[in-house]
């Protein structure tokens, strides 16, 4: 277990993405009354799962710089997908934000964020423990 290990990178990448998601949700909530504003959604799970290739099912050869990194733990070029929420109900002023749905999303995001921080802490804790137990 070293500080560069794949799991730790996955955890910190997920943490970054969830931060971005929080920003997007805040933006939706703040603009809940802005005429013509379209609610935005963000997906990162697929990109991350591909980079992790957890069950070894998605093997791909990388022969060009633009190819997706699959399973190699190439986390540096991951981009999230941001798009208009297709499930938005259009109000008369053209706004598609559903505040309750956004708040529910925010709660889930926060919970997962906390869980990720905790897992990172656990990993760091174990590493520190292993280092400190030399006598």
């Amino acid at each position, binding site marked *: 277990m070293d500080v560069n290990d794949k799991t730790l990178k996955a955890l910190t990448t997920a943490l970054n993405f969830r931060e*971005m998601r*929080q*920003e*997007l949700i*805040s*933006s939706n909530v703040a603009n*809940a009354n802005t005429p013509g*504003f379209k609610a*935005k959604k963000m997906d990162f799970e697929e990109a991350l799962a591909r980079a992790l290739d957890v069950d070894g099912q998605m093997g791909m050869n990388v022969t060009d710089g633009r190819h997706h990194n699959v399973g190699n733990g190439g986390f540096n070029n991951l981009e999230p997908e941001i798009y208009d929420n297709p499930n938005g109900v259009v109000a008369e002023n053209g706004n598609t934000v559903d505040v309750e749905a956004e708040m529910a999303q925010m709660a889930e995001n926060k919970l997962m964020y906390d869980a990720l921080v905790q897992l990172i802490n656990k990993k760091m804790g174990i590493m520190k423990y292993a280092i400190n137990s030399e006598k």
Partner: protein
Amino acid sequence: MDLLSSLRISSSGLAAQRKRMEAHSSNIANAQTTRTAEGGPYRRKEVVFGSEPERDSFSEILEGELAENAQTVHATEVVHTDKVIFKHDPTHPDANSEGYVAMPDINPMVEMANMIEAQRAYESNVTALNITKQMAMKTLEIGRGN
């Protein structure tokens, strides 16, 4: 940085809803005002919201898609309607020659509904702000105490 931007976005929402609140409570307070400094009855106020990208153009280049998609909001304009309604009341000091008084076109129900909506929106922005703050505090816990 993302969390700080989230704070800015949420606080822009708070400011915008507060302006909206001010406009509508001013409307309610002035529902019977027939004399104003500009002459004529009080004109009903409304705020118009607009959104714009939170980032300045330089960091947009660095930060990619999120930059254009996360938007702050502001109350871009306070608009006055020119509409007045005429009430027949010859005893009113401001009645014109036919006994009609020009009154502001304000329906208290509409104003109340707007105020309630503004309050709800304000609260949801407060919640968003609090959650962002909690996330930032949680981040500080990495590496602490183990």
